């Protein structure tokens, strides 16, 4: 093991073209030969987290910031999430961006149900997280009353950088998923578990 490690370092300094800039000990293909040994969980989660395809549930002003995050300056494509699939069947991350009214709540719930497992949700902005400034008869006080949310983003609207930070936190959550270990994800049943305060 030790000899291998020292060979790795030698390889890094002599053969590797980027040796002057490389500071971390990665693996060198010339020595190890395109093979990594890792856990299946880690690999599958790595694939999933670097290609989270969002389903933009853009309902109000936060959708504009979502679009800004998808545009060139705050590129969401860096994280592999530029394919904003508007079809729930083809996406795995629903970003609820905007005020959810009671009239729209049923549609949001139905779209969430149509997404295939594994699926995650980011509640973007104050309105999606808690109802925001709209404490009234027509606004659902937080989308987590009808669907399970993984990451909440504060802001009205949150800056695109805040959304990207939330996406990174989402990636950390995806990376920790115990995939191949048997586990049951408790499914929220349709509206029976409404938080009525």
């Amino acid at each position, binding site marked *: 093991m030790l000899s291998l490690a020292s060979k790795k370092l030698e390889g890094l300094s002599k053969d590797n073209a980027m040796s002057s800039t490389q500071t971390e000990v990665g693996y060198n293909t010339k020595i190890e030969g395109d093979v990594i040994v890792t856990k299946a969980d880690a690999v599958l989660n790595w694939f999933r987290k670097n290609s989270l395809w969002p389903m933009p549930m853009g309902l109000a002003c936060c959708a504009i910031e979502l679009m800004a995050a998808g545009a060139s300056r705050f590129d969401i494509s860096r994280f592999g999430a530029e394919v904003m699939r508007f079809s729930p069947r083809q996406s795995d991350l629903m970003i609820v961006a905007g005020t959810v009214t*009671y*009239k729209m*709540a*049923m549609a949001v719930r139905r779209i969430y149900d149509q997404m295939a497992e594994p699926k995650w949700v980011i509640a973007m902005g104050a309105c999606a997280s808690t*109802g925001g400034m*709209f*404490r*009234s*008869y*027509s*606004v659902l*006080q937080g989308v987590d009353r009808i669907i399970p949310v993984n990451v909440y983003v504060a802001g009205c609207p949150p800056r695109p950088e805040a959304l990207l930070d939330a996406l990174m936190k989402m990636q950390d959550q995806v990376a920790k998923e115990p995939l191949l270990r048997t586990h049951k994800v408790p499914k929220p049943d349709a*509206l029976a578990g*409404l938080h*009525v*305060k």
Partner: protein
Amino acid sequence: MSETTTKAKELAEKLKAQFGDLLSDIQEFRDEYTLMVQDKTRIAEVCAYAKETLGFDGLTDLSSVDHYGDEPRFSVVYELYGHTHHAYLRLKLQVGEEECEVPTVTGVWRTADWHEREIYDMMGIRFKDHPDLRRIIMWEGYPYFPLRKDFPLEGKETDLPDVAFSRKAPMEGGPFVTSPGKATTTEREPRSRTVETD
């Protein structure tokens, strides 16, 4: 007085001259002219005359007011505008709570369609002969009229399985209102205020 104001005054006087006692006297406030229509069943006639003869070809707004506690309870306000002469005119109707029905003006201006649907949805005033009178903001089957003064801001619980549901919003001490004219930000800070505490 500007040109459009003199024109507006002239047109208001013509309308009053045409309909006589059906309309109240012209009320003037800051160069805006208002006429109250005493008999609500003839509103379509008045509007048709205003559009065809006086050139008020645009209905800029159609809204309703709830004077909770006064008799008659509701008013319906028509804001008229003419694109050729650029003059404005306001017509008002009083509608009581029991006989909550007004003839529609969709025959005169097509835009009144959705405005009347909104008034029906939010205030509960029905419109006779409306082509499609149903709720526009809340969902079909919602039992209340939200913009009435006796409907609470946080709403009421309703349940329509497969259509929509609603719950009371947590008020946590009531709507937090600012006092805009005060000098310091401490006084202007949004707080739960009642009419007396200012």
